[in-house]
């Protein structure tokens, strides 16, 4: 197996045993990037030089005989909405094309402190708004399994870079499914932690009450290792929860005997691809075979999750993105008559159409006269959706569903049909509304494209999700299958 295809846990063992140096490892990944990036286009910014500098520091540590942490010296990358001092952070938007933050996001700080080697910043839908990474102002990212297909989104660069072995792991952010849906499309493991488990400080906000950062990895073990490093209370984020953080790797046991798994039938309704349904059905059989008690259940408000999500998220985004006005940083239009025209032209030029669509939606939903009918109503429905989860999770240890209703679709296929694009978050957005954790793990293939299995759990039950996901992974081979990446760019 190519070194770059190995898991972070394996790479750690190699570094520790001095089978390879951190610098050599970084060079391996740079070589890999040089080979496949032209087709995949996962990166907005590459920082090979600083990666080699960081690697040299880790090598010095290893040479001194110091014990290195599980992520030290291992190449990874960040979604381009997480701030890293001195490295441009664009949110894949013209608005921030040249924005260089003077501070680190908390997750960045924690990973760099853990010795992680950042290879750069990863492409995404502009400001994390989208489900295909086609809304990047720069270029779309291609699915390593089929370059004519989308990666999903909005963390398309995060999943594609991992699937294409350009990095060992990455961080993504998930507002309505933006880690899990693309993880499913690209056949990798993606976790959206409980709201408040990982600090949002330094994550350029899309929808503050829904956004959550999480790991994208090749294996469940790696995912637990990365979450170990980034989770935990942060005084810089008031919504971060002071909870007792476990060692998530302790949950990685190959045993789910007697665990209760609920299957909410609403997640298998209209719009679910037959092939996907079949893969998930097989996965259910596998889990049953491993001793889980699987029962169907109902979450009656699921059908309202999409409209609810598409009121709350745009409402928050309309306010969060107001700061991009050309006054202090980012794009500023030229030759303006006055301040109002500067605001208008700056935003008209700086934002893409999906961002504008959501700002308009959200502004409308918060307007006087409409607030009660839209925003407030959506908040009430949000409470009902949360209750659905609370009720179901009283009876079950985890809930199971497809991560996305279909496998990856073709680039351009849904670009002109926002509603059908929005439907691709139908299985993932309810969890963000409820603030609960969910993980997507590779569960099989439909026509050569990966399908993801979603496990959802109680608040702060990431450990339980890892246990079920790990057991499933250990008893299946889907995660071992790699995309060939031989095809030429189709578009």
């Amino acid at each position, binding site marked *: 197996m190519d070194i770059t295809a190995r898991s972070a846990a394996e790479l750690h063992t190699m570094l520790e045993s001095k089978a390879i140096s951190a610098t050599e490892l970084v060079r391996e990944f740079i070589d890999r990037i040089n080979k496949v990036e032209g087709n995949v286009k996962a990166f907005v910014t590459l920082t090979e030089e600083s990666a080699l500098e960081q690697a040299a520091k880790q090598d010095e540590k290893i040479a001194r005989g110091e014990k290195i942490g599980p992520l030290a010296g291992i190449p990874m990358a960040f979604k381009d*909405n*997480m*701030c890293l001092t001195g490295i441009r*952070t664009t*949110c894949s938007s013209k608005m*921030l094309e040249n*924005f260089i*933050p*003077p*501070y680190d*996001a908390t997750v960045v700080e924690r990973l760099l402190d853990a010795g992680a080697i950042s290879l750069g910043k990863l492409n995404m839908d502009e400001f994390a708004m989208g489900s295909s990474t086609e809304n990047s102002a720069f270029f779309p990212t291609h699915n390593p399994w089929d370059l004519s297909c989308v990666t999903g989104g909005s963390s398309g660069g995060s999943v594609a870079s991992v699937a294409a072995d350009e990095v060992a792991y990455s961080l993504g952010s998930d507002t309505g499914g933006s880690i899990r849906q693309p993880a499913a499309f690209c056949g990798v493991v993606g976790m959206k932690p409980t709201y408040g488990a990982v600090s*949002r*400080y*330094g*994550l*350029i*906000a899309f*929808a*503050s*009450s829904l956004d959550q950062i999480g790991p994208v990895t090749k294996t469940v073990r790696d995912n637990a290792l990365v979450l170990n490093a980034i989770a935990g209370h942060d*005084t*810089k*984020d*008031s*919504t971060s929860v002071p909870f007792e953080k476990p060692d998530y790797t302790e949950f990685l046991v190959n045993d789910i005997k007697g665990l209760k798994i609920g299957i909410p039938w609403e997640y298998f309704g209209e719009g679910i691809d037959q092939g996907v349904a079949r893969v998930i059905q097989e996965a259910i059989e596998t889990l049953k075979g491993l001793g889980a008690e699987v029962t169907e259940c109902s979450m009656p408000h699921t059908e309202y999750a999409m409209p609810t999500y598409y009121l709350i998220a745009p*409402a*928050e985004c*309309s*306010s969060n993105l*107001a*700061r*991009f*006005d050309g*006054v*202090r*940083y980012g794009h500023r239009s030229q030759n303006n008559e*006055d*301040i*109002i025209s500067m*605001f208008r032209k700056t935003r008209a030029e700086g934002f893409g159409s999906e961002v504008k669509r959501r700002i308009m939606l959200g*502004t409308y939903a*918060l*307007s*006087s006269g409409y*607030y009660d009918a839209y*925003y407030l109503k959506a908040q009430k429905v949000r409470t009902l959706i949360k209750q659905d989860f609370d009720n179901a999770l009283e009876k079950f240890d985890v809930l199971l569903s497809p991560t996305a209703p279909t496998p990856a679709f073709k680039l351009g296929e849904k670009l002109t049909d926002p509603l059908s694009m929005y439907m691709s978050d139908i299985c993932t957005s309810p969890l963000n509304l409820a603030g609960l954790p969910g993980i997507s793990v590779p569960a099989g293939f439909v026509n050569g494209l990966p399908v993801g299995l979603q496990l959802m759990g109680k608040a702060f039950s990431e450990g339980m999700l890892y246990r079920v996901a790990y057991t499933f992974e250990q008893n299946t081979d889907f995660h071992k299958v790699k995309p060939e990446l031989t095809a030429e760019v189709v578009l």
Partner: protein
Amino acid sequence: MSVNDYEMVCGVEVHAELATKTKIFCSCTTEFGGEQNTHVCPVCSGLPGVLPVLNREVVNLAIKAGLALNCEIADYSKFDRKNYYYPDLPKNYQTSQFDLPICKAGWLEIMVDEEKKRIGITRAHMEEDAGKLVHSGETITSSMESFVDYNRTGVPLLEIVSEPDMRSIPEVIAYLEQLVEILEYTEVSDCKLEQGSVRFDVNVSIRPKGSSEFGIRSEIKNLNSYSSVRRCLEYEIERQAKILDEGERVIQETRTWDEGKGITLSLRSKEEAHDYRYFPEPDLVPLVIDREWVERISQTLPELPVARRARFQSLGLSEYDAKVLTDSKDLADFFDQALIEYKDAKVLANWVMGDFSRILNAQQCAVGDSPITPLQLAELLKLIEKGTISGKIAKSVIEDMYTTGKDAGTIIKEKGLAQISDEGALSGIIDGVLAANPQSVEDYRAGKERALGFLVGQIMKATKGQANPGKVNQLLKGKLS
């Protein structure tokens, strides 16, 4: 009808800067002034990705103000975003409180023309201040260039909204003075009007006297002195009266006060009013305030001016003296501290308001910076009481205390200013004076009382004023009889 045929109805919104060391959502200093954009960080300059963290001291001060203003303190309160675009607002929304303010339903009492009146306080809420714009021209739209200074951005404010309970300009001024006094007294705000740390918005309408319906109001924003409020209200009442007299209707609108021209100008009508699209601030968790917290703050609440005045009067001070002392919290604190050591409140008040204040005023020294401590003043007064020095000598001693910072006792000792009360010593001096002035002795014995005064004067002269006057009189009369 004339202006006098109308009654004004006025409510006031007061924005007071809270006296915290750091800003409301970051740890930047709140210090006034400073180079432009030096008191800023990623949070208060609204960089992408940053998050607010509420300064607990802001909540403490808001609770304290609420208690001092007889408000209910909410168990559950939250922040909301007020959305509008303006370049002095880095996020283009202001984090404020909308429907669940921290304080509500309070009141304070004012006194106008010897009559007490209670003014309702609807609510008080916390919010962040905006930055400061400097234009190359007159306004933002007519300028080629505008500059923005974010030093003030994120300075915590308390917005205190009154009921429309005020019916005259003196009532409005009394309310504002009383409110500012309470905020200063509780150290919630240092209320430096000249630095803009307190700003007033007034809502005013008029109606024919005797009418019980409210008229249509205008809101005049951003007044920063009592005299502006007074002049602005005088102008606005007249303007509205003229409109009504002409049979027209007042338009509900927001106006600004042009200090130079002394007029109000329309800013925007009700129809043009901003839709602020308030919604709960998702970056902050709701504020849950338990009774223990409120109790803890209430323990730190000082005696408020009204109560203090009453107590001072009960000590025997006149209403006037009690008011003079309590007008400044520092002076009243000084008085109270001295009172612990020196119990005669009337004598103490005379000295505090008299020589002590006179010296400080002459030296332009604040009470807080006075080199004379309350204990030192009390010691001085005790020395008068004991007869160690006379009141007259004390007046020069206190001057020395100010310039040297020394105790009264030390100064008296060093300068040898103690009164001579020793009978032996005085007797000798008196004998000498009698011997030198035989004519006066004869005059006195012949019944000329005035001669006694002359002899006392001579004795005081001989002792440089240090002889105990009582003792001198007693001994002299004995020797002459």
